[in-house]
């Protein structure tokens, strides 16, 4: 019975792997960073399903950490990396 949860987690992992294409393609830095956000939500869902499928409730704590830290990465990106640069080099549109 627990195999069906693993199957769902597999589908979500495939969704993440597909979303990774956006890191390579995304024209602006924010497009790349959005994938980290996708990881936040999808990763939490995968961990919850694995927690049910593997019957290991410790994984819920990892899901909590995932959700908070993906948001932390996005916020650092907005505050420290993207803001205040005048559109040159690593940020914005690559040359």
């Amino acid at each position, binding site marked *: 019975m627990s195999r069906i949860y693993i199957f769902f987690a597999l*589908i979500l992992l495939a969704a993440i792997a597909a979303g990774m294409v956006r890191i390579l393609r995304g024209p602006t830095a924010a497009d790349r960073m*959005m994938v980290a956000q*996708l990881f*936040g939500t*999808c990763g*939490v869902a995968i961990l919850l399903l694995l927690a049910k499928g593997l019957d290991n409730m410790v994984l819920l704590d990892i899901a909590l950490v995932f959700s908070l830290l993906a948001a932390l990465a*996005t*916020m650092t990106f*907005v505050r420290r990396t993207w803001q205040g640069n005048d559109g040159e080099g690593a940020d914005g549109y690559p040359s």
Partner: protein
Amino acid sequence: MDILHNAGMFFIILGLPFFLSGTVGLLRFPDIFTRLHALTKADNVGLGLIIFGLALQSDSWLMVARLFLIWLLVLIASSASCHLVARCAMQKKIQPWSRP
């Protein structure tokens, strides 16, 4: 018990297409803002449905509370970071794509 289990399974299955469409939107939509739309909304609804399904199947109230806490945190985190990214994109004067 069995009914709850099946209902939970139903909601989990219902949640998966939302995640998939979030990814599809992330890949297909033309600019930052529309991609943010896809990512924030679809993924949150998908996660909400999965968490609701798992909560129906869980056997203790503590687990339900924990799942609900996770959902709340993800909701706050993703809507705040979505707003920050959009705001920063506006400040950098990135023009939203519009239909020609």
